[in-house]
Every structure is written in C-alpha cells, then in structure tokens.
C-alpha cells in the first residue's frame, strides 16, 4: 500500500491550513462529494425514504435535533448537467429505481434500437497500423463482397452478447443527471449545491469526520486575496464520496488510507465527444447505436448514438495503452467524424455541445477501499465500471442505491457508520449484486490491450465467453512506464533532426506539437466550416460554456518543476482536452483555468512519475471550481 504523504511538497492549499485560519464549521448528518449517476442513485433512494411520511419518526437528525436528517451534496460544476456522454446503458439498476421510467420524460433519452459494431478502415492512410493489421485490412478489402462492407467500414456480423445493450436506453448523461437532480431537490429532503467544490476530506486518524470546502477568494497559487473566504468545514457522521475517476477527495483517501493490496489504477482513457444536430435529410432512427474500432488509430474506439429530434452523440476514447507520446483527442475526433461511414450522416450537421472526460478502465483491480469509519465510496471512482462491457452508468447508479439502503438500515437500527457496519450493510449488498458478479468477469478482460489492439480484442472476447476465467495479457504497468520517447516512437519514420526541427518550429509559431506531427504523419488539415468542424478553441466556445469563476486557485499543478524540465514528451499538452495546458515560460507547462474542462487526462497522461517507482505522476489534479457545461449535453 502506498502512502505518499511524505512526498507532497509545495502544497499551496496547506498555506491556509494550520496558519491560524479561522474556519466556520457546520454539522450535518450526511455530506456528499460529487453529483453524478452514483450520487443520483444514492440521493434518490435516500430522499424517497426520507419523504415517506411514516419516516418522520424513524429518521431523526443527529446534527439538528428535531429536524429530519440533513443530507447535503456538494458538486464542483456550476450546474448538475456536466457530463460528456452520450451513453448507452442497459439501465437495469436505473429501471429498478424507476420502474415506470418513460424515456420521453428525459430530454434526449430513447430506447435502444439498432446496434452495430463496425471495423473502420483508414481512408486517409495516416494511421499507425502494424504490418499484420495492414495485411488483414488488405485481405478484408479484397473479400469485401463476402463481408458487410460499406463506405470503408465493415459491420462485424457476429458480436458477443455482452457487448449489446438490448432493451436499454440511449441517454445524455447531462440531461439524465439534471433530471435526477431536479427530482431529488424537489423532494425537499436533501440539498444539492453545485458550484461548490470540496477541497478534501477531514481525516482524523483512520476516521473521516467530514469535508472541507475549497477556499474562495485566493490567487492562482491559493494564497488569500481580497474577499478571502476560507472553505467551511462540513462535519458529518457519514461522508459519501462519489467524485468520479479523477475526483480529488477519492484520491486523497486512496493516498492517506491506502488502496487494497495489489490494487492499482493503470488503465485509463479520455473520452472526447460532441453532440451534433443532424441535417434534415439524415434518416437515422433514434436509438441507433454504433460502436467502432480501427480508426482514426487502431487503439481508438468510437461511438455514435442517435437521440430523438435529429441529435446524435459521437465520440472517441483515447486509451492509456496507445503509446504515442503526443496522443491527443480533439483532432482525432474530427478525423473520426469525417470517416466516410459516419460522415454521410454527420456532414452538414451543427455542433451543439462538446466535452471530454476521463474514464477509469481499471475495473475491479482499481477498486479502492469501499468504506471505512465514517465514509463510503460509490460510483466510477470506486471502481464500479464494467470494463468488459464498457458500461458504468448503471453500475454507478446501483452502488449508490446499495449504499443508501445500507445507510437507511443503519439509521433504523440506530447503529453508527463504522467500517464494520458499513461493510455489513453497503459492501455486503454490493458484493452480492450483479455489479460485483459481472465486474469479476471483467476484472482482467482488458489486459490483452497492454500488448496491442488485436490481443486486446481477442482477450475481451475470450474473457467474455469464458466468464472471466481465461484472460490474455500481462498485468498492466503504469501508463508513464509505457511511453516511448518522441525519438523512439518515430524511429524509422521521422529522422531525429527533423523531429527537432518540427519541435522548434511549432514552439516558435505557437502551434501545438501534436498538430504539427499529425500533419507530418499525413493527417489532412481539417476543413473548418464554422458549424461542425471548428477549431479546438471554437468548440470550447460554441459547444457550451467553460466556467472559471474567479478567486479560486489553479487546480492543475506540476508538483516538481524540475521533472518537467527533463520531460521531452509533455504529453500533458497534447492530450489536454481544452488546450488549457500549453508550453509556458521555461520548461514548466502553463495552465489556463479558463480552458479547463476538468477531464483529468493530464493526471494519468503525465510521463514523469513523481518519484522513482511511484504510481503517482508529476501532475496534481486538485479540487477546482468551474468546468464545461453544454446546453445539449
């Protein structure tokens, strides 16, 4: 188990920590961190029970005697709608909570219709395909009359059952979260406060006694300024942490209280997507689900889901096992959309919203401690995502429901929120559920990707078919251990002198290195049309609003500047979803809060471990205010 407290150095937030800063305290019954599907499940279940008139006697507030339990949820984003997908889910857990769920009540929701899995060929000729894959491509094209070939893609005729979401829903996570949030708030039984980031959990020994909200009115380094308002301490017998795969509070608990033995988080992806308004003549039925692989790079999976009213979500996932030191998402997304098979639907469309998000693909191996004295973890940050089926929303929701049931049980029995009691109620329910059972099947199913795309796909198929008993591939290594240097990556393709020249030129012209290298690799320039194909910065503006309320510290920090000095790759710059990280003065990248969409990709992409052998990288992703909120997300 790692504890890296000793390694933490210049932590500006600690400058307001013991310095005699007076903080207000508030006492509540349950304090929650983050509002997503997991917290939605938790608060829906809890608020229903608390809204039941018979509950009045059963549930009493310990914090405010005479009142019903005070349940408060703090969410960083300015609105509850932050969410990047475009999600397709079997919605089993969700339907259990809402048995009469009518998709037409939730904007952009629709039942799953036609599902297809497609292998996309490379019409541009710039993607890095292995020799073997190239041969396979050629063969496939030769025999395309035998295969379901259409516009540079083949439909995979036989896809395993576990990949399908028959009977499920195509949703917009943003709309779904808003819908759940409105119901939960409307009950009056719980409070949800957006725009209020939680800085850290308050840990006393092994117990969590509450949370501390983020200081407001500071400069970018976190030092108090005019209008300084120290973050309040909200103390509660139970702290529920559902802050997602890169949430700072979850990671703080991992660091301070440790991850279970042998557990680690080494498999990630950054998802980048758009919501597009389709042309009038596009004839795609709502509920159509397309999953693709093979383009723009073999490692990149993509999707397109069709919502009602001529809207579609389209996106790609750039994984941590794609070993490019200049891996990036936005431009690849644009090339993806222009693939002939998809472009016939997307051409002439209008960008409605855009966003990016980190996905934790480590599955059960990435599961942290689920509960402890005074705290519990739910959702994607607790490793609930099923990495075989690629589904997380329903699983997250279900863990939230499981915790709520545990909490209600403990309240009824008048028992405290100790590790033992939470284990016996919440964790037990979770272990006994389909989330666990199916998660175990998925546990090692992705290991094959560590060796490459083909091994990975084979491995997934075998794992799925054998119920997880047989898996291909080695245990993953930390992403930063896999990254080749620029010279190595381009060995045999671009001479080192040319590489150096490209680096110098792009730095001088202010053009990002990954753009210059993609150009050089043969990726054509994007033909901007001002409507769907727009520059990265325009997507940030057109695709929603990036909030960066003033008075908060920068939340992306490069812990040890000297490590950046020696870093040749600076993948953080290439992969930053919002171009918020750029070449700065000297060697440390510069961070612009006003462009950060809080995807967290920088955190796991950094190629420099904080210390030799450390799982942590040199990038800290702290609590921060703001982010991206899109209208039709």
């Amino acid at each position, binding site marked *: 188990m790692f504890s890296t407290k000793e390694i933490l150095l210049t932590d500006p937030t600690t400058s307001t920590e013991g310095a005699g800063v007076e903080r207000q305290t508030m006492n509540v019954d349950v304090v929650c961190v983050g509002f997503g599907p997991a917290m939605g499940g938790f608060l829906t279940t809890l608020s229903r029970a608390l809204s039941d008139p018979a509950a009045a006697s059963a549930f009493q507030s310990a914090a405010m005697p005479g009142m019903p339990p005070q349940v408060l949820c703090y969410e960083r984003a300015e609105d509850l709608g932050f969410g990047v997908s475009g999600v397709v889910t079997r919605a089993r857990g969700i339907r259990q909570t809402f048995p009469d769920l009518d998709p037409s009540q939730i904007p952009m929701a629709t039942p799953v219709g036609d599902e297809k899995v497609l292998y996309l060929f490379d019409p541009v000729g710039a993607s890095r395909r292995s020799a073997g894959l190239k041969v396979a491509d050629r063969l496939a094209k030769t025999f395309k009359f035998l295969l379901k070939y259409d516009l540079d893609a083949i439909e995979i005729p036989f896809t395993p059952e576990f990949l399908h979401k028959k009977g499920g829903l195509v949703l917009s996570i943003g709309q779904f979260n808003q819908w759940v949030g409105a119901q939960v708030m409307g009950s009056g039984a719980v409070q949800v406060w957006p725009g209020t980031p939680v800085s850290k959990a308050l840990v006393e020994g092994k117990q969590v006694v509450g949370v501390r909200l983020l200081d407001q009115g500071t400069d970018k380094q976190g030092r108090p300024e005019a209008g300084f308002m120290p973050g309040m301490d909200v103390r509660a017998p139970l702290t529920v942490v559902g802050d997602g795969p890169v949430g700072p509070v979850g990671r703080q608990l991992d660091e301070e209280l440790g991850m279970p033995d042998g557990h680690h988080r080494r498999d990630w992806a950054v998802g980048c997507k758009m919501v597009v308004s389709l042309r009038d003549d596009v004839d795609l039925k709502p509920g159509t689900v397309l999953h693709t692989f093979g383009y723009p790079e073999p490692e990149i999976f993509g999707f397109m889901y069709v919502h009602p009213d001529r809207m579609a979500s389209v996106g790609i996932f750039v994984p941590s096992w794609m070993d490019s030191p200049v891996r990036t998402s936005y431009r690849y997304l644009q090339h993806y959309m222009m693939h002939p098979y998809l472009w016939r639907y997307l051409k002439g469309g209008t960008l409605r919203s855009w966003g990016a998000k980190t996905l934790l693909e480590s599955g059960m191996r990435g599961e942290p401690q689920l509960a402890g004295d005074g705290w519990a973890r739910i959702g994607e940050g607790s490793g609930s995502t099923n990495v075989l089926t690629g589904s997380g929303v329903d699983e997250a929701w279900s863990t939230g429901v499981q915790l709520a049931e545990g909490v209600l049980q403990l309240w009824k029995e008048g028992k405290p929120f100790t590790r033992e009691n939470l284990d016996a109620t919440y964790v037990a329910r979770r272990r006994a559920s389909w989330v666990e059972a199916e998660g175990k099947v998925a546990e090692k199913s992705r290991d094959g990707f560590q060796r490459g795309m083909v091994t990975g796909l084979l491995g997934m198929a075998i794992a799925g078919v054998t119920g997880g008993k047989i898996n291909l591939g080695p245990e993953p290594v930390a992403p930063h251990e896999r990254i080749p240097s620029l010279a190595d990556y381009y060995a045999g393709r671009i001479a080192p002198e040319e590489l150096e020249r490209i680096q110098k030129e792009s730095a001088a012209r*202010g053009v990002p290195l990954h753009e210059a290298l993609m150009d050089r690799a043969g990726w054509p320039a994007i033909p901007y049309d001002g409507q769907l194909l727009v520059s990265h910065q325009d997507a940030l503006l057109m695709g929603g609003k990036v909030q960066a309320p003033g008075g908060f510290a920068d939340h992306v920090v490069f812990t040890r500047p000297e490590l950046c000095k020696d870093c040749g790759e600076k993948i953080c710059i290439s992969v930053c979803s919002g171009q918020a990280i750029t070449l700065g003065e000297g060697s440390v990248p510069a961070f612009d809060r006003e462009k950060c969409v809080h995807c967290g990709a920088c955190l796991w992409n950094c190629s420099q471990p904080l210390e030799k052998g450390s799982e942590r990288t040199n990038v800290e992703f702290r609590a921060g205010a703001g982010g991206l909120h899109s209208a039709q997300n």
Partner: protein
Amino acid sequence: METILVLAYTESDGSLAKAGLEAVGAGVELAKALGGKLAVGLFGADVQSAAQAVAGCGAEKLLSVTGPDFASARYATDAAAAEALCKAAGATLVIGAAGSRMARVLPGVTHRLGGQVDTHVSCVAVEGGKPVAARWFYRQRIEAKLARQHRPWVLLLDPGSHAPWKGEGAKVAFTAVPVTLSEGAKRTRVTGVKAPQADQQTIRPDAKLLFVAGAGWTKKQADGQPHMAEAEKQILGFLRASQASLGTSKSLADLAGEGQAVLGFMSHLNQVGQTGSTPRHPKGLATCCHGEEPHVVGWRFINERRAVNLDPNCGWARGKADVLYVADAFAVMSKMTELLEKNAGK
C-alpha cells in the same frame, strides 16, 4: 383614425435633441401613411428653442408642459407631464423619443393611460394600413416584428431608428397643458450629474469609431509575459489620438470589476455585449478579442467592422467582421497611434 402623438423632452437649454427630432420624423411619416392626425407634446423646463425645430411638421396640436418643476429628469414629474400630454392630445399612438429620460417613465405612463407599450423599437412602419414595430429580443440576438390592436399603443424608439426631422417654415406656438402635481411628486430631487474626469472619459457615444479592447491585451504575449503597462499605454494612446469610444468584452470588464490589477480605466460601463451596451458607431475595431457571440451581439449597430487578432480562426474570421488582420495588436496599435498623431500634427 389614429391620433399620433410625438412625445419628447427638451434639453436644459430648451432645445430638442437629435432623438426628439427622430421621433418627430417618425411621427410625421406615420401620420401620413396612416392618414392620421399628428400631435407633438414636449415637456421640460422650457420649450421655446424647440419651436423652430418642429416647424412644418404638420401637427394639429402642439402641446407642452413646462416649468421649473419639470426641468429635471425625475420620474414623478415627468410621468405627470407625459400623462397630461397624452391625454390632452387624445393619443391613440404615442411615439416616444429615445433617451434615458423617456425610458425611465414611458412604460409607467402607459399604465396610467390604460395602454400597452413596446420599447427599444428599432423601426416603425406601416404595413397593410396598420402600424408595425420592430424590436430585438434576447440581447439583440433575435429580431421580431409585431403589432398591437390595443390603443393607446405607446412606442419608445431607440436612437437612430429614423431620420431626424428638419424644421422648415414659420416657428410654431405651443399650447401649455396644465398639470397639478401631487404632494408626493417632489420627494425626489435631482442634485446633479456625475461624470468621470474629462481625460478619463472613455465612452464617447458620438465617436465615429468604437474601439474594443478584449481580454487578449492582458494575457501573456509571445515572450510569455503579460504587458499591462504597455497595454494601457497603447490603448489610452490610441483613444487620445483617434477620439474613439472604448468598449470591452465581459471577461475583461469582470476582471476590472474584481479589482484585479488590470487596465485601471476599464469598467463595466465600457462593456459591449452581454450585460453591456449595444452602442451605435459607423465603424468598429476589435482588438485581442475572440469575437464570440454574446460579445458580438453588442456590435449589432456597428456598420463597418474590422478586427486585429493573432488567431486566424477567431470568431471574427467567419462573417462577424469585414476584415480580420492576423497580427499582433501591440505592434499595429502603436503604429496607428503614431500615424494618427502625425496626421493631426500636419
């Protein structure tokens, strides 16, 4: 038959400002097109100097409410005056002259008349024998044309919505309309006008050029450093030399508002678009400004637009400006100032 009343106030010297003459112009045209009667109602300290300005407009009634009580722009007294004028004229359509003094009272007066009001009217026309008004919604992002059956219908014009009337012929005489003010009408006293120091006044509504300085002026430049002092010098220098009016985008105005060490002469009053203004100038030059929609809607009434920005893909590039110069504003502005000063010195 409609009775169209042009309602305006006189300036402190008794004259009619441009906005008033625009209202007269609109009223005259409307009366002609509708075959209706025209009346003119003025209020203020005194209306004598306005008499020449409205000559020849063909108004059947020329009414006024004057006196020391009506000198200041005060709701209670202005509303009483306007109400009296409208009732005395028997107006079915009221065309209110643009300006803050009229905007303050006209909707309230409409209520007293039992009428209905539309403000910020950019254009009044006659279609199918009926008056139709155009106005903007959602901060100049949506334009609508509308009509009302209800009378009286009060329309408050926006500046520049019509050609101003040019008085011709014999001076006219106004008939005073008596107004009894209630006790409560003088609870408010106007004590004066506060203006920024003459050399710090950066808002010039009559300037030929709107100069917008965007957030890019305060960001790090090519050398990785921000150059605030230089930015301030450039912007103020250009303003002095060009006598342009200064505008900014919300992001920069917000920074200034938070007391950050940004350009000290910038305030919310300079903001164009979003919660700011929609100024009217024949030309506009945007510098270091991305040109996103909420700001650009504030440019609705700027005819010729050019922008200087290092980003060739900024919003101005696509149809929001006539010309985009991809260049460093620091360099361009300093040279422009130099040239303007040289031309002035000639």
